């Protein structure tokens, strides 16, 4: 158990931070040297109408291109980064947004439970998630999938994930899946550049600016928990959720991976994830596993719970339960 924990322990920062200062000064030199050449590089990837309009915009683009992995930044650098991204959103898309770099709360480990005897398959959670997390409307990206299940089966792969009819249907039950925020997550192990990791509060996140888009994490995930931006994602301007987090619902680019973050922009402020709040049947329970008085702890203690593909040893922080 201990050795397994070491491998995925998000607090194992010494190893990550090692050689940080030399790397940073190198990068600084590199960014100056490459500034001239990358002008062509950065603009080369854009179509004509999105050509940078000002010197400031171009400068910010370079800085963002050469920014380091979010996990290596000090809190001060994180703050500067989100400030820059906020400014870029204003310059590039004329959007007034707020991007947070709020760190994890102390003594918090998030857990999630899903009541399969109560869910009736309305999919309000899916809708709320799409809105809250600024999911790509072109590709109709969804973090949450709801499966209509036959009685007697507990594996979503035997259910129907594309139903389109009036719910609930007699003699069926409903099972939601999303990223399970595994403690021993195969996706984290797979990533060649450490662009995805587990935060100290248990949320598995992606640094969109660091991801190279190789999709090895996607192949490694046994739960279909990750989504890739095959094209340029788009959200109508009036529907954009403006309260954002660097690791959460901020703008994604084409060619990067994304996933459920337990609505990190909400939960780190003490709110519930959008799906939990939206659920009309109260099937979704979310809370702090380290708090003995939390609802999630009550469920784990008093209900019959199980997890999906327990045999893979991924140790998800997502349980199903039966009333």
């Amino acid at each position, binding site marked *: 158990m201990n050795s397994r924990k070491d491998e995925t322990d998000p607090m194992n920062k010494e190893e990550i931070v090692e050689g940080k200062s030399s790397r940073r000064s190198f990068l600084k030199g590199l960014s100056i040297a490459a500034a001239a050449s990358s002008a062509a590089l950065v603009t080369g990837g854009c179509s004509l109408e999105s050509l940078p309009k000002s010197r400031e915009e171009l400068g910010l683009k370079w800085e963002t291109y050469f920014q380091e992995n979010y996990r290596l930044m000090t809190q001060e650098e994180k703050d500067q980064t989100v400030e820059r991204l906020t400014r870029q959103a204003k310059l590039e898309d004329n959007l007034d947004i707020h991007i947070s770099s709020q760190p994890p709360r102390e003594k918090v480990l998030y857990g999630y439970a899903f009541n399969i005897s109560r869910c009736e398959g309305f999919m309000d959670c899916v809708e709320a998630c799409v809105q809250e997390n600024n999911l790509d409307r072109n590709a109709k990206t969804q973090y949450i999938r709801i499966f209509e299940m036959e009685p007697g089966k507990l594996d979503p*792969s035997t259910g129907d994930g594309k139903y389109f009819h009036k719910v609930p249907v007699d003699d069926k039950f409903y099972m939601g899946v999303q990223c399970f925020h595994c403690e021993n997550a195969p996706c984290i192990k797979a*990533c*060649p550049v450490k662009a995805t990791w587990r935060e100290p509060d248990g949320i598995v996140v992606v640094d969109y*600016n660091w991801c*190279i888009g*190789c999709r090895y994490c996607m192949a*490694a995930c046994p739960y279909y928990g990750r989504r890739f931006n*095959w094209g340029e994602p788009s959200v109508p301007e009036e529907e954009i959720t403006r309260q954002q987090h660097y690791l959460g619902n901020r703008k994604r680019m084409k060619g990067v*991976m994304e996933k459920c973050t337990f609505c990190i922009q909400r939960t780190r402020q003490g709110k519930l994830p959008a799906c939990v709040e939206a659920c009309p049947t109260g099937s979704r329970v979310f809370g702090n596993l380290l708090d003995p008085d939390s609802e999630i702890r009550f469920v784990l203690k008093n209900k019959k719970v199980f997890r999906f593909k327990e045999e893979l040893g991924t140790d998800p922080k997502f349980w199903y339960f039966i009333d």
Partner: protein
Amino acid sequence: MNNSPGKGCTGFIADCSKWALTGSTSYKVYLLVLLAIIGTGAWAYSNQFRDGLIVTGMSDIVSWGLYISNFTFFVGVAAAAVMLILPAYIFKDADFHEVVIIGECVAVGALVMCLLFISVDMGGPLRLWHIIPGIGLFNWPSSILTWDVLVLNGYLALNVFVPLYILYCNYNNRKPVGWKYQPFIFLSIFWAVSIHMVTAFLYQGLPARPFWNNPLLGPRFLASAFAAGPAVIMMVIIIIKENTTFHIDPIIFKKLKRIIVISAIINLLMLFSEVFKEFYTFTHHSLSAQYLFFGLDGRDALVPWIWTAISLNIFGTLLFAFGPRTYKPKYLMVAAISLFTGIWIEKGFGLIVPGFIPSPLGEVIDYSASGIEILITLGILATGILIVTLLIKPALKILSRYKDFERQKLPSS
């Protein structure tokens, strides 16, 4: 020879470029055709670069396709150079020594293709510097992909260095010094095995994908590589023998044939073992195999491919096993092409795509490559062929010049 022997580094580069780029009209046409295919591929890639991977046939369910399939196969072709290097340098087999350079050039071409296939598969190619150790963040040893980066680039370096050194010495009419390159030969033999095992581990280590999560995957990769790789090398040698004056002893075909037959039979045996395991006791882990061989939920895009592949595989193996004893270029070419194509389909498409089907949530969809994807793939294949050509042509020239030089030296000494 009528060429005045050049000297030194600049002469080497100048002469090699000259020998690589000059030739008959048909040779020039051949180079131009390759360049045209590469150009089309580059144009297709510019589209993919602008619009994203959405222009491919891939999706969240089948998230790797033609690129990664070809990558996997050509790692095998690269690794197969060891089947010439081992007898040539370690067992001092004089016949293999004559053609070992061809194997090494094929390996370089195959490795460049592998690296290109990986690069075009990236969602953020401009962010690829994140994977460079030192300036990026290299998730080693945890991520098998980082191992693959190391072994592929290392093998490329080995396969460039050793032949380059030997050719450079021969160009300057010197005998290469053993201790300067032989340690690297030993290293490259282990390295060849490692590039293919590590690539297999990339898939084999994922419990999320039961179709790949199979301890036989690595060994079977090697067996199929040692059949398909020498088949490619045989094709190249036949083309050289039929089109140039470079001397190739027919005995080499007999020896290559023996390697191919043994590897192909071991490969078929392992294939049979896998098929038996999947179908004798059908579990829900066998669904991918069911999809591949017979179709699932009415989806059967891969079924014709896999049966074509298996037929070609068996046909090629039989041709090699029961062929005539003398050198028959057309016969050998047919055998090599069938075996090569069979393994190409089976180990590329037939291995990568069904790993994703059904998805972890049980969804079954078909994948087919888009036009852009096919054009990019053809462009990369043409790049590989171009590189092999441009390397082999001057290499053979230097070798035959050096042979003449040695022959002239003999009577006088």
